[in-house]
């Protein structure tokens, strides 16, 4: 659910935080700055859905991208910003007819992605958490995770529409 505060941010220009869907050539872009609430995941999904409509992505094509976006924002809210409403989650979208590129940033302390245990290892199977990054890597062609010089984590991920990757989907089609 979008809170009244979020709606104000999204509808009251000009503050640089409204979603901007710009069609320049065949590339569609938008940018969001969200407070650290899980409810905002659906808002970010809706924006991606709009861009996919513009770029002509099929339901099957967009589904893994939607799922990955969900995982990245959930991580940013929970692990990065630790649910601190004073910290923002940035989402940048760039969709063309052939490729989706997403950038999700937080204002947390950063972390070493190589230190995240393999959730498929037998000793980790019954751990309730730790599968978000694994899901993103399964679903997207490319995922990079870096700690930004100014602080916080930046996740950049991309997937081609005609990728040969056959990773399953977690999202309804």
């Amino acid at each position, binding site marked *: 659910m979008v809170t009244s505060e979020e709606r104000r941010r999204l509808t009251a220009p000009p503050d640089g935080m409204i979603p901007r869907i710009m069609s320049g050539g065949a590339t569609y872009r938008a940018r969001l700055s969200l407070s650290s*609430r*899980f*409810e905002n*995941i659906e808002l970010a999904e809706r924006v991606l859905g709009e861009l996919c409509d513009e770029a002509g992505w099929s339901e099957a094509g967009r589904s893994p991208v939607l*799922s990955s976006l*969900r*995982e990245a924002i*959930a991580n940013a809210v*929970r692990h990065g910003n630790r649910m601190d409403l004073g910290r923002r989650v940035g989402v940048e979208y760039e969709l063309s007819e052939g490729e989706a590129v997403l950038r999700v940033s937080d204002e947390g302390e950063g972390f070493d992605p190589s230190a995240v245990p393999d*959730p*498929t290892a*037998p000793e980790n*199977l*019954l*751990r*309730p*958490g730790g*599968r*978000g990054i*694994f*899901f993103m890597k*399964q679903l997207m062609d490319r995922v990079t995770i870096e700690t930004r010089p100014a602080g916080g984590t930046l996740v950049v991920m991309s997937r081609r529409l005609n990728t040969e990757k056959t*990773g*399953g*989907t*977690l*999202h*309804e*089609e």
Partner: protein
Amino acid sequence: MKSEIVDRGDVRFIKLSGKITIGSGDVELRHLVHSALDDGKKKIVLDLGKVSTIDSSGIGEMVAAYTSVAKRDGQLKLMHLPSKINDILQVTQLITVFDVLDSDEEVMSSFS
């Protein structure tokens, strides 16, 4: 997420529909399973046939439910697995953890 509870003998069926995602369904699932345990149920089935969307938090809650039930000497099983959730359980290796069934009869005989 919506849920429906059906007790058949000493087996509790928890029929889930909609989304099991972070902040929407994951905590509800936890409460449903703990409520079953509090009611003394040790044979619990999650019917996932009408689940449309699940994320890593939803999968994590299913794993947490499995261990919570096992700690009380119970068993938690899954039924009517949608293909996309089956795919996830395959890729995460969790298919080796969960007992997955397709019908009420299969469930009842598996517990006996």
